[in-house]
């Protein structure tokens, strides 16, 4: 991916730049926030945005900007870990199904079907009942649902490649299924995986927000954008600002990621659009 290609696709540049910027915002919160997020100052609560607090304060007097920065970090972390779980387990599964076929494929498809029956919320419910709520819960729930998504994408992509003559040529050259999957299938589906990865990342951010909102995800004293919305729930009729700031942040992050994903798809391979339809939007 050289600079010229990047410039040829403005949406890609904008998307990636915006996403990185927002992620950076979150990362910075690891070392510095305008105010420490645990700092509760009841006297200063519900402050309007101003010089002291750029985005105002919440019902406990905590600085909104700091909360949002830290919350962004949590959202990105959870979503990223969940995507890694999905790719790490789903892609080998899908490749194996395409390369070996037969019983392996059958098993992978059945496991996929099964996992599709358990949307992230349901998994989160079960896990919470078992071990209680928390960030790990969210990562697990979202990650588990990512697995069949990536397995489908990997399998679909690999299948359309597996019928190409060069795969047969590799087989003739004595390569076994594993070698073929590694050497020929994987590199040729990389672009598909990357594009799906950005999609699942944005979906993961939305999912994390939802889970935290209903109390199954991030728990206090940690913060996340969804948790901020949960806190704002009971008050939003009187203090709508508390819900607007985190909500808008979520919207911005997801739009940035989606634009980056679209741009990536167009830049890497316009033919991917066709495959998008088979498994778009999760």
């Amino acid at each position: 991916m050289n600079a010229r290609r990047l410039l040829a696709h403005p949406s890609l540049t904008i998307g990636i730049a915006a996403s990185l910027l927002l992620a950076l915002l979150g990362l910075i919160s690891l070392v510095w926030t305008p105010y420490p997020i645990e700092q509760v100052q009841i006297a200063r609560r519900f402050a309007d945005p101003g010089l002291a607090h750029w985005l105002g304060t919440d019902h406990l007097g905590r600085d909104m900007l700091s909360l949002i920065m830290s919350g962004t970090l949590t959202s990105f972390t959870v979503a990223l870990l969940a995507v890694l779980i999905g790719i790490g387990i789903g892609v080998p599964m899908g490749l194996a199904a395409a390369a070996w076929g037969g019983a392996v494929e059958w098993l992978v498809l059945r496991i996929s079907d099964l996992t599709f029956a358990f949307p992230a919320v349901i998994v989160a419910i079960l896990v919470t009942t078992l071990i209680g709520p928390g960030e790990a819960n969210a990562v697990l729930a979202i990650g588990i649902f990512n697995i069949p998504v990536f397995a489908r994408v990997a399998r679909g992509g690999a299948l359309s490649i597996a019928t190409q003559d060069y795969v047969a040529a590799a087989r003739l050259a004595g390569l076994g299924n594993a070698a073929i999957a590694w050497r020929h299938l994987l590199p040729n589906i990389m672009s598909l995986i990357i594009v799906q990865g950005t999609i699942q990342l944005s979906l993961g951010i939305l999912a994390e927000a939802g889970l935290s909102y209903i109390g199954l995800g991030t728990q206090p004293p940690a913060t996340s954008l969804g948790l901020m919305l949960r806190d704002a729930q009971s008050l939003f009729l009187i203090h709508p600002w508390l819900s607007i700031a985190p909500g808008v942040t979520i919207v911005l992050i997801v739009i940035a990621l989606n634009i980056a994903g679209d741009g990536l798809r167009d830049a890497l391979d316009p033919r991917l659009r066709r495959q998008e339809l088979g498994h778009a939007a999760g």
Partner: protein
Amino acid sequence: MIGFALRRLVGFAATLLVAAAVIFLLLDLLPGDPARFVLGINASEASVAALRAQMGLDAPAPERFIRWVIGMAQGDFGLSSTQKVPVAGLIAERMSVTFPLSMLAMVLSVVVGLPIGLLAARRRGKAVDTALMALAQTGIAIPNFWFGMLLTLVFAVGLRWLPPGGFTPWGENPGAALRALILPGLALALPQASILARVMRTALVDVAEQDFIRTARAKGMTRDEALWRHGVRNALLPVLTILGLQFAYLIAGTIIVENVFYLPGLGRLIFTAISERDLVLVRGATIVLVVVVTATMLLVDLTYALVDPRLRREAP
């Protein structure tokens, strides 16, 4: 076609069975004695033991599993540990809110999303297309529950057209019940409609490049006519697939959105059950959700085969 349907049904039943086993196993792992939970901390050992025997808790796990499954097949989902009433009844009561809400959201998203996608595809590359897709892009990014909050602010608090929350049972006042579902339905429908619009557009744009569209034009149709008469039907295939997948998300979303509007649906039932450790209720509600999701996918698969003759494999 029959063969195809039969195979799918068998797969459906198998998936459900395995899912039920997974749920059962997971919840079985929990420490704690349900019988003691029911009777209270101070109950005597004897009465706890008696209740255990009565509840069949001493039997080995496979036996309990089978009894549970058979019970469900007969409509018996057990008794709620906390509320001491049949779980089936509780769930049915709550489903009367959750199910219509999901359906309403589904219908709204299709009715709004598909025409927008069609319009954008017809005017591909023009300002209308860019504007609509930008709108869709935003719509996907908005968390449905947050949108619900915003809708409440505008329509319930600001304009006072609709209630901000709560629900009157269907039996009492169907009109009010429906009005209570409008805002949550809209909140759920927004991201779904946006996704459908995008998928519809992409599908149509792809179909427009297919050879049979050129054939249709060669026969004497204009571009629009060819797209409408040949393109839409073919484009609906991938849209159908997405619809099925999205339903799982819709159900999840419904549970969450109920929270915003204080609707007495399945979601709030489950969350209360979790916090009160009412395992029987959690188990029953979870399996119901799984059944609904899986059944929808089955329906989509069958509809797909109905629409696409290539899948039916009949002898010519």
